[in-house]
């Protein structure tokens, strides 16, 4: 337990030296982010440990390091972002990055790279555009075009270690804040830096902090919104798993600035690793005295606790989230009063997104200049995005505000995989919009996106191709929002259901021009009349596709699904001239809809066919065709 700021700063200096030494010695860092773990990262890690023990390298390799536990040459690191290339392994001190590592590659990595510093070309990152091999991670286009601010130290940060976080300068902002700065000073810094809430709305963080500070209340709370429910978004999860202390430090600083004594981190129960990591971070911070009574010997006391969500999208809305923390159904309330005036149990409550909190200590540490040198005038700084879809590279990126979609899709992620053609970009999840190709050069920031009726949202970007039907996309999102609507207000509860029913008619080929009109009218009403953010933004997928892809709606009325995605419009036919009668299709058909005699052309029974398309994939002679 540390009792004064001086001692804490000394510890940080010590940890910095310790970390520096670790980075300069021979070490393998295995990425254990969700993506890599699903691809077997823990097995790769165990194999490294096994072979290192077998060869007795655990102490001999880095024996000049007198800190015994730092000699271990294999460590775990948090998500490196390039999830589609997992399992990722970084080898220090050379900074080599290897992709798609399997258990079978481990021995070679130890023998060649770890022992002799020899890079293995076969495992290096491949540049998705040129196909060239890239030796070091900083040379890969995927990282070069990013602006790593809160994600810096990719590939070499130990996510579950408070010592490692301090070695990266962590908790120095808190110490400085408590010993040298006033609450007003910190709020002023946030305002001058121009930090805006990363949860989607982009509300100025300093203003929110000030309002909570000025609100009279016997007690105050800070809450971290980690209820990342948007389908297609996982940057909060990544941040919580790779650097939980940065979020926690931000929460403690915010508590000091607004005068709160208790904090809650509301995390999705669907993210068990994030919950575990954050709980450990809280324990470690308590152990060292960054949480608890009289932090660092000052008169500031604060403690934090994890509250798990239980699976409700609407809880991302702040008033619903607060109800959920109180142990109730997550139903939103009308605003005002805002949480800053009356939040948890009626007390003033500050609520910010995970990423917003992670930015705060970084701004205090690196200064306003460094923060404002990134991004655009009105929205400085960086934003994490999760980028998915049929792109050459998928994963988590951090770019400056003002970066264009084209830079993200083509420069960073390498464009689409062969044979796919980009049609639209879905940004902002169920509250966001589908943008067509003409918006590729639009700078991504809160105000510009708002001007085209889209939103940054929490930051999920999904690339959609000419194989994807935009009407189906709208139907999919309304299916989601109608299920997640809490049911409190009629425009959202009934409106999303009716809009869904109309969209279903479109995808089933039963829609008329009248439906098109009704849909547009209904979407506008839901937007105007709903109580909370969920309902107000739920029609966005409809409105944006109606605006940019109206011809697809019309085509559905006329009996065609241009992308061929809607099964109601599909028909499969076996071309008798190409069919060799091998029967493979009949055996693979889950519905037993294909029959025939061996050696003669087979037939599909349309009544039974559910149009899954499995037979098309199976047929070696390309004899099965899709007819629209």
């Amino acid at each position, binding site marked *: 337990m540390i009792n004064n700021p001086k001692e804490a700063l000394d510890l940080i200096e010590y940890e910095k030296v310790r970390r520096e030494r670790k980075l300069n010695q021979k070490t393998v860092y295995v990425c254990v982010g969700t*993506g890599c773990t699903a691809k077997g990262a823990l097995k790769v890690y165990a194999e490294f440990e096994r072979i290192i023990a077998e060869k007795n390298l655990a102490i001999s390799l880095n024996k000049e390091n007198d800190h015994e536990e730092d000699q271990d040459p294999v460590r775990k690191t948090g998500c490196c972002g390039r999830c589609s290339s997992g399992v990722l392994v970084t080898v220090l001190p050379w900074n080599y990055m290897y992709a798609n590592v399997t258990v079978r590659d481990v021995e070679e990595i130890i023998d060649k790279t770890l022992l002799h510093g020899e890079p293995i070309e076969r495992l290096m990152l491949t540049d998705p555009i040129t196909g060239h091999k890239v030796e070091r991670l900083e040379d890969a286009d995927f990282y070069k075009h990013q602006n790593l601010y809160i994600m810096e130290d990719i590939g070499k940060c130990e996510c579950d270690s408070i010592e490692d976080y301090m070695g990266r300068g962590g908790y120095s902002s808190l110490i400085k804040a408590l010993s040298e700065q006033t609450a007003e000073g910190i709020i002023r810094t946030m305002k001058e830096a121009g930090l805006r809430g990363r949860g989607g709305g982009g509300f100025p963080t300093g203003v929110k902090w000030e309002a909570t500070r000025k609100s009279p209340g016997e007690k105050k709370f800070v809450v971290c919104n980690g209820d990342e429910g948007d389908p297609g978004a996982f940057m909060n999860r990544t941040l919580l798993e790779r650097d939980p202390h940065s979020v926690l430090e931000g929460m403690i600083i915010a508590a000091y600035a607004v005068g709160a004594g208790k904090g809650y981190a509301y995390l999705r129960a669907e993210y068990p690793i994030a919950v575990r990591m954050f709980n450990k971070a809280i324990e470690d911070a308590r152990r060292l005295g960054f949480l608890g009574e009289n932090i660092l010997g000052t008169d500031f006391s604060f403690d934090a606790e994890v509250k798990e969500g239980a699976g409700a999208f609407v809880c991302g809305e702040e008033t619903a989230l607060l109800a959920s923390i109180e142990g109730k159904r997550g139903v939103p309330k009308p605003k005002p009063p805002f949480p800053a005036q009356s939040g948890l149990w009626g007390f003033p409550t500050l609520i910010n997104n995970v990423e917003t909190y992670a930015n705060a200590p970084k701004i205090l540490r690196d200064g306003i200049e460094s923060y404002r040198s990134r991004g655009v005038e009105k929205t400085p700084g960086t934003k994490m995005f999760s980028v998915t879809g049929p792109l050459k590279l998928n994963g988590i990126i951090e770019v400056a505000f003002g970066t264009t979609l084209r830079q993200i899709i083509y420069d960073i992620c390498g464009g689409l995989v062969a044979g796919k053609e980009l049609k639209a970009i879905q940004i902002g999840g169920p509250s966001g919009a589908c943008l067509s190709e003409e918006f590729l050069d639009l700078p991504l920031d809160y105000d510009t996106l708002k001007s085209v009726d889209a939103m940054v949202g929490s930051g999920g970007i999904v690339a959609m191709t000419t194989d994807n039907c935009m009407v189906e996309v709208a139907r999919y999102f309304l299916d989601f929002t109608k299920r997640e609507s809490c049911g409190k207000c009629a425009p959202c509860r009934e409106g999303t259901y009716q809009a869904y029913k109309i969209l279903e008619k479109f995808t089933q080929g039963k829609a008329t021009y009248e439906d098109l009109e009704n849909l547009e009218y209904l979407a506008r009403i839901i937007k105007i009349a709903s109580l909370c953010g969920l309902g107000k933004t739920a029609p966005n997928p409809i409105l944006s596709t109606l605006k940019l892809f109206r011809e697809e709606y019309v085509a559905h009325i006329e009996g065609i699904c241009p992308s061929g995605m809607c099964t109601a419009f599909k028909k499969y036919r076996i071309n008798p001239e190409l069919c060799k009668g091998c029967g493979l299709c009949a055996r693979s058909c889950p519905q037993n809809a294909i029959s025939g005699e061996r050696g003669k052309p087979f037939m599909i029974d349309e009544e039974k066919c559910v149009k899954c398309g499995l037979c098309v994939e199976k047929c070696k002679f390309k004899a099965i065709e899709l007819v629209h």
Partner: protein
Amino acid sequence: MPITRNFSKVEEILKKHAYDKKNLIKILLDVQKEYRHLPKDVINYLGVALDLPPAKIYGVGTFYAQFSLKPKGQYAISICDGTACHMQGSTSLLQAIEKEIGIKPGEVTPDLLFSLDQVGCLGACALAPAMVINEEVYGNLTPEEVTRILKNLKERKEA
């Protein structure tokens, strides 16, 4: 058949959360983990212990997707239907699962081995299409792969 239950487990959970109604969601998450659903008699028991009407607890229990009033299987399958997964063919995975274990989302097999749920987003979008079985993530799936995984789990049960 009337169920006679020993509530010592429930008491343990209540104690862990200080018999505090503010922790209702945490308590229910632990109950769900213990019994793989929220049994009716446990809801009533909690009502008395926390001084809450059972209807309130029922209200919370039915609001959140993590809770179920019917038991979940030993292998609880969550098939992701997030945006990335949906666009990359999660529907065909669902069909493969339905075919292999014979149940639809929201149901459980008669032997309580498998239960199936379709969920919003698992946050594993870079591995789309994905599913989770008891916290283990499976990514980049095909219908064949899914069938193989389920067959393996069935065999493990038999062995």
